[in-house]
């Protein structure tokens, strides 16, 4: 199912590449000892190095390098044992040194691949061009004073990974799937918290369009700093449509940097002052080339956690669930862990249905996450056990689950307290059936006259008589016998 934009002169294909800036999870900044915690008072996490005082020098933070290497390994990418830091020179008030230390020519991570999972259940392999380490800039606040700008340097010098994809994406959905999968992998690895609201993950979106079958790419535009997955998808669509219009009207798309305006749902060119033209890159003479010990890289590799793709394959094999279910369950590591705790020693499919259906529904409804779920994995497992050992029936189980969502109590306690234990005593079932049949002579005659679809109605009446606690199998069996 190929995504096409239908123009007035025919269909167009969209070509997308993403440059994602992911803030590295680390105690201190890329080249200084200052802290990186989000939300601290302005300029409270700034060292003399971050503020670029005279004579201050950068010293590489080994943990940030390890995080970049872990991420590279997680993207099945080549690790460059020798890389280099360059200076990207431009003037701005929140860039204290007048240059950003980045990796221009020799990044720490080279080419890799990432599998994206699409809504229709299919998968696609997307090329990773490179990953490099760089410093973040500070923050300019223009709305605090009528004539002045305020500068907060807390973020200045924080480590970022720039992860660049090949132009392999062909639709807004694929772009969204790419962002979701990348965020999932980063969170599994613990190398980026993936929190887009806090700015930990931002994307520059490169978009071009071409006629299906054309083998060359046309001119692309770069949409800067898009900070949600939804906006990435919207920006792709809006920009692609704009470009189709330009081409179809006989114009030419100019290579330029644009911004996405979510309010208007359109992209617009950045003012020329918003970006510099010549960054005058050159190797930073304050830093030596970054040389990695292959044994150190191997140790990091050996300690990588199981990543979403591997976990998905294992869930399919180990728990016998469909690939689609497994794909949904592994997106967040916390969900996967929750599911696994429920599924272990139980019916995997049943566990998946309860987690993806009832639990996700309840979390959505109550605005909670898997980490703050009122129903623990242990309690959900216990509920399945109560169903499977016939202590309660499936219908009562739904009620017990709702009670668990409300109270956070264990299912056993709820069943006991509310007397919801399933009735398997055939005497009690027979008594209930007899009462129902005695009160409904007409219906019994109708059934016996051939209206077999009434059977379900009788089951409902008996269950009602038993306050829902009758064992469904036993009720069916006895009813059949008594109705003859």
């Amino acid at each position, binding site marked *: 199912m190929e995504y096409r934009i239908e123009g007035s002169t025919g269909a167009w294909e969209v070509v997308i590449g993403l440059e994602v800036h992911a803030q590295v999870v680390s105690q201190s900044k890329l080249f200084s000892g200052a802290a990186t915690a989000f939300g601290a008072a302005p300029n409270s996490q700034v060292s003399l190095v971050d503020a670029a005082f*005279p004579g201050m*020098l950068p010293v590489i933070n080994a943990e940030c390098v390890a995080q970049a290497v872990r991420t590279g390994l997680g993207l099945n990418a080549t690790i460059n044992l020798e890389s280099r830091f360059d200076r990207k020179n431009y003037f701005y008030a929140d860039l204290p040194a007048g240059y950003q230390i980045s990796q221009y020519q020799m990044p720490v991570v080279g080419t890799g691949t990432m599998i994206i999972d699409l809504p229709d259940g299919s998968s696609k392999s997307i090329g990773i061009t490179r990953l490099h380490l760089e410093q973040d800039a500070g923050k300019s606040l223009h709305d605090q004073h009528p004539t002045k700008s305020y500068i907060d340097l807390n973020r200045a010098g924080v480590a970022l990974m720039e992860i660049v994809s090949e132009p392999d994406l062909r639709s807004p959905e694929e772009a969204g799937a790419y962002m979701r999968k990348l965020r999932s992998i980063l969170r599994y690895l613990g190398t980026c918290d993936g929190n887009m609201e806090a700015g930990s993950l931002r994307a520059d979106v490169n978009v071009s369009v071409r006629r299906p079958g054309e083998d060359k790419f046309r001119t692309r535009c770069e949409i800067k700093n898009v900070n949600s997955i939804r906006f990435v998808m919207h920006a792709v669509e809006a920009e692609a449509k704009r470009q189709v219009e330009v081409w179809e009207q006989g114009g030419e798309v100019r290579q330029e940097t644009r911004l996405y305006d979510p309010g208007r749902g359109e992209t617009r060119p950045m003012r020329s002052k918003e970006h510099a033209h010549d960054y*005058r890159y050159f190797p930073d003479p304050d830093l030596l080339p970054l040389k990695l010990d292959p044994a150190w890289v191997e140790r990091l590799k050996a300690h990588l956690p199981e990543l979403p793709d591997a976990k998905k394959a294992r869930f399919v094999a180990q728990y016998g669930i469909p690939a689609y279910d497994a794909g949904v369950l592994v997106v967040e590591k916390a969900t996967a862990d929750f599911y696994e705790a429920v599924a272990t020693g139980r019916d995997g499919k049943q566990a998946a249905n309860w987690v993806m259906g009832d639990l996700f529904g309840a979390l959505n409804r109550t605005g909670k996450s898997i980490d703050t779920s009122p129903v623990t994995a242990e309690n959900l497992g216990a509920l399945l056990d109560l169903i499977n050992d016939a202590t309660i029936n499936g219908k009562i189980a739904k009620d017990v689950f709702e009670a668990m969502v409300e109270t956070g109590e264990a299912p056993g306690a709820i069943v006991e307290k509310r007397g919801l234990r399933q009735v398997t005593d055939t005497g009690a079932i027979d008594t209930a059936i007899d009462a129902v049949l005695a009160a409904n002579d007409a219906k019994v005659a109708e059934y016996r006259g051939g209206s077999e679809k009434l059977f379900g109605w009788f089951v409902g009446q008996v269950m009602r008589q038993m306050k829902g606690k009758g064992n469904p199998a036993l009720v069916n069996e006895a009813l059949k016998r008594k109705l003859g």
Partner: protein
Amino acid sequence: MTMLTHLTLAGMRAQLRARTIAARELTMAHLAAMQKHRALNAFITETPEAALAEADAADAKLAKGNGGALTGIPLAIKDLFCTDGVRTTAGSKILENFVPPYESTVSANLKRDGAIFVGKTNLDEFAMGSSNMTSAYGPVRNPWTRRGDNAAVLVPGGSSGGSAAAVAARLVPGATATDTGGSIRQPAAFTGIVGIKPTYGRCSRWGIVAFASSLDQAGPMARTVEDAAILLTSMSGHDPKDSTSAPLPVPDFAADLEKPLAGLRVGVPKEYQLEGTPPEITASWEQGVAWLKDAGCSIHSISLPHTKYALPTYYIVAPAEASSNLARYDGVRFGLRVPGEDLDDLYANTRAEGFGAEVRRRILIGTYVLSAGYYDAYYLKAQKVRARILADFTEAFRSVDVVLTPATPGAAFAQGEKMDDPVTMYLNDVFTVTANLAGLPGVSVPAGLDSQGLPLGLQLIGKPFDEVTMLRAARALERAADFRALPALGA
């Protein structure tokens, strides 16, 4: 008083330890000399009160017999080293009121060993110059004058001209300096003193206002090889805060200076015989060769074929790095701020008023050579030539232990001379820039006086991190030259 300031640093140390002089007395003698010779303009900032307080503390330590390597020794610090709580200007108006809240590693090392700082010495703005004429705080006067010509005021060389003048005029026995293309060795030669530029990485650059990071290196200036070696021992050492600092142990550079030189191989590079070199410079060089031969060295003619490219290479690499290093002086966080309509205006106003002409020129050159489309032709090419220059030396050092050259193409010139054309000024660095480009240690030693009565220097270049051998050869030159002449001022 005069006698105290004329002692060597080693001599002062011996007397302080023997308690035949007090640190306070020694410091006061130097402070008095500084006051008397203010016309030299060697200092931008003097710190007499702090110096006297430190002197008293030094005397207390010395009385208990637990002084360090430099306890009680007055020193001057080039105003490119950040000093905690003491204004640090880099010779620029843009840092006129900048008081760092931190101490450079090199000056901290000297303090650790007990040195007393009497003030911050004048320099070319951001260390960019060979004459000290580019300082925003006025030029430094060379204490030497031409024989029979008191009218012409001579330059002390640069950029460490203030340190050189202060040491030569006996205002201090030693001073810190920095050398990016010759800024220690050229002024040492112009003022008849010893200046060491150690191997790149020997001294930490942390806390030194950066000019060109891949070339900058701190070193000492003093009146004898031994004094300079004592200072270098204290200044050196690995610093985790400077990624380019060498993780190597520091030898006692003063320990083996008197060891015989027999068997030492001295290289004489033929490419340093430049057309138009004054005969007196050539004669001084030949004299140096003869002295080392007499000391038991073998002399070898060597070839350093890429020498002629060194100066143009230097004047691409150094401005390129400087253009980036000086971007931080933007009026936003510290230093001079000249407000404007908007941010771009603030930058333009601040930097136009804060930087002098030479600094602006080098920022422009550096910005140009790094620009898209020019990078490969200039900066990248320069880096390749730089690698060749290092390869020349690596090859030469397979057959020789040290290289002997003149320190400068001439003696000190007068203020105002060589000012018409920047390239003429840049030619002053012709013998010294190679050591910076190759990261090698170099030392300038006074070799004698020219026909005008001005000092001339000889330069020795050593193998990487083999300052010990280089300084032994320097000591042999010093012994043979027996340089005793005194400058007209300060003597």
